[in-house]
């Protein structure tokens, strides 16, 4: 296949796809100094090696990439040749603009991922530092499909291109979890989850979000967690919430509403009901029963 470069603004093919900033296949046959100095990416960039061997610096770490390997770069992250130039070989490059607000990044409305999966995949792709994913030959095929649809538009080609981009992201997200070793070391990944939960206990965690950290579907995730901890994921979370609430209740200076909200309950009423159901005490009774014998402040 011949090399090509499609750019937003100058290439007619990209007009129906405002989110695709650039899509190119490069066959590099000569080494030119400074042809690939590390630069900060402005968009979500996917580099996929088709042929050859490339040594790149991604987010200040050096990687060696072979055919089928992918560099995944978020806006604001850096990529470039480890020695400043592009080695001989062939690679795809796809730059996608994503929506950024202060707190989070999200794919645009072009994506046809369903709501829950989209949130999960966004979280996996856009919040973690993936950098490099290995052995994803499927991606080369998908990128070829995208190109074919773009240069030979037939009926339904807009939908198909967007589907292919979604597929590409799904495959990358799946691979990221395989690389994350969650299967090999469930306890260790679970410990990471535990830490995330504790760090952000006030947040309304969903099972989908938790499962995403393991790269598992919610059903498989729930089963694994039950097998491992004896609790469903949400009950395990309640466990942590109540344990933390108990610590706060034992300090006379924190009021019930603050305790409830800090530990992730909707309201002091919700907290009170859950607490009483589990411990048999209302928070008030509990605090009374555990008041320090005398103030030691």
């Amino acid at each position, binding site marked *: 296949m011949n090399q090509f470069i499609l750019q937003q603004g100058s290439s007619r093919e990209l007009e129906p796809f405002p989110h695709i900033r650039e899509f190119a296949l490069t066959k590099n046959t000569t080494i030119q100094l400074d042809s690939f100095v590390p630069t900060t990416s402005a968009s979500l960039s996917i580099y996929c090696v088709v042929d050859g061997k490339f040594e790149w610096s991604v987010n200040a770490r050096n990687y060696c990439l072979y055919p089928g390997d992918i560099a995944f770069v978020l806006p604001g992250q850096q990529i470039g040749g480890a020695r400043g130039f592009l080695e001989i070989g062939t690679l795809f490059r796809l730059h996608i603009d994503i929506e950024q607000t202060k707190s989070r990044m999200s794919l645009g409305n072009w994506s046809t991922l369903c709501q829950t999966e989209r949130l999960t995949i966004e979280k996996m792709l856009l919040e973690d530092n993936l950098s490099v994913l290995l052995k994803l030959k499927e991606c080369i095929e998908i990128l070829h499909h995208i190109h074919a649809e773009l240069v030979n538009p037939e009926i339904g080609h807009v939908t198909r291109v967007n589907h292919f981009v979604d597929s590409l992201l799904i495959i990358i997200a799946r691979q990221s979890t395989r690389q994350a070793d969650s299967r090999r*070391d469930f306890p260790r990944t679970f410990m990471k989850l535990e830490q995330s939960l504790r760090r952000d206990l006030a947040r309304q965690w969903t099972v989908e979000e938790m499962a995403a950290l393991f790269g598992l579907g919610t059903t498989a995730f729930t089963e694994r967690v039950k097998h491992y901890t004896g609790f469903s994921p949400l009950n395990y979370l309640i*466990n942590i919430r109540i344990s*933390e609430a108990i610590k706060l209740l034992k300090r006379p200076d924190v009021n019930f509403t603050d305790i409830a909200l800090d530990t992730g309950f909707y309201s002091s009423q919700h907290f009170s009901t859950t607490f009483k159901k*589990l411990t048999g005490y209302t928070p008030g*009774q509990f605090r009374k029963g*555990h008041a320090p014998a005398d103030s*030691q402040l």
Partner: protein
Amino acid sequence: MAMECIITIDLGTNAVRVMAFDVDGNVIASTKGTYPTFHVEADYSEQDPEQIFITMLYVLKNFLIEKIHTRGYAVLSICFSASMHSLLMVDKGGIPMGNAITWADNRGKKEAQELKQSALGRQLYESTGTPIHPMSPLVKIAWLARHDRERFAKTHKFLSIKSYVLQQLTSGYIIDYSLASATGFFNIQSLRWEQAALDFAGIEADRLPELVPAFFSSGKLRREFQTSLGLRDSVKVLVGSSDGCLATLGGGVWDEGKAIITVEDSGAVRTVGKVILRDANQRLFNYVLAKDCYVSGGPTNNGGVIFEWYAKQFGDFRSPFDIEHTMQHLIQEAADVAVGSQGLLFLPYLLGERAPIWNANARGTFFGINIKHEKQHFVRAVIEGILYEIYSIGKTLREHRAINSLTVNGSFASIPLCAKIIADLFRVPVSIGKNPDSIAQGAYLLAATDMGIFKSLDEAARTVVLSTTYSPNNNHHRTYHRYFSLFEKLSTQLSSEFEELSELQHEQP
């Protein structure tokens, strides 16, 4: 007539395990709930006491509702066990000051080393029966007195996790003789706190919980818990014992000539007797189960956790496999390799070692690799290495007590391949207990004895049913013995090299 049951609760290293028995000792149901261990710094190992308490309460409540009340069982008593060596500081108001320090915490290495080599250390080992090591609360408190003066000074009581949980559930700070004898403070003959140990740690006896026998009832459940758990006022809460002591009882080990090998993540070989075993090299512990009844033996850090490490690093993880499957495959591979792994030896000291070499700097070693060795030889060598270490503990014990038959339990030791290797190594028949959870079995036997179902613990232990038995093979025994003698030599002779390597590993963490 209403059916009655006994509940056992084990506050273990990673999880609380709850089991229910009918009065005849049949298991009705069981469940568990895990809690995390935090390693905030190297050598630190801590757990959240509130999370342990809530997890226990939550698990127990669901268990009672789903499995016990609905089936029409009335609970007669609840008997506790717990892992040893935990330490929790509470202030005057009974509020925990920081997390509980678990047995695996090593921060008191230096203090332990100093004490162990002193005359006082030897004297304390004699009187308390607990070898001096960083796990012992004695050393942990000494560490605290040196490095965390403020917390040390503010501490009203130094508790075990179980003491805290019982105080929350009922009231009063108590500790049973078994757990107490793992603290390093307990005189196992007078059954009182040992003054020389208290002096060493710089505390008075009133800062430790009250000493009680295993049959002691810690009082009624607080009314709120009676209501939330749906338990009657009359339910008896038994303080119980330690996991090690109860596993021994539950394994049916009572008579002369019997021993039990438990290997989960870590492992131990234990016997029961009326006399305390004095070991010149402080290799053996002696824990009080009941009056004039001592559980003696030796522990190892490097049990199933080493095999799991190996499986994680070198096992096959092609798509659908998780760690359990991977380990099963490895065990099958190992079973096809000849006894002795064709000359490949493995020292399993990845975590340093307690009994019998007591060298925290010891490390893992493959020895004797030749060009013909394949992957499966390494797998078998790892398994054999772990069991050589178990055998060397048994060998030390045999200097004091005969071992004519063995019971094995725990997830690693009860793998048939492991049970067979153990039978060949010791050259005695090896049985696996019918109830895989011998800690719970032991707790049941204790509670049942308390209720008068058995006249004595002695009689209770004799009712334990053992299932499969493996007989030793003499040829295998001879082969293993030649390798074991090499294993023993390597374990001790490498000690200065381990030392040197440990320094290097500390420089380049």
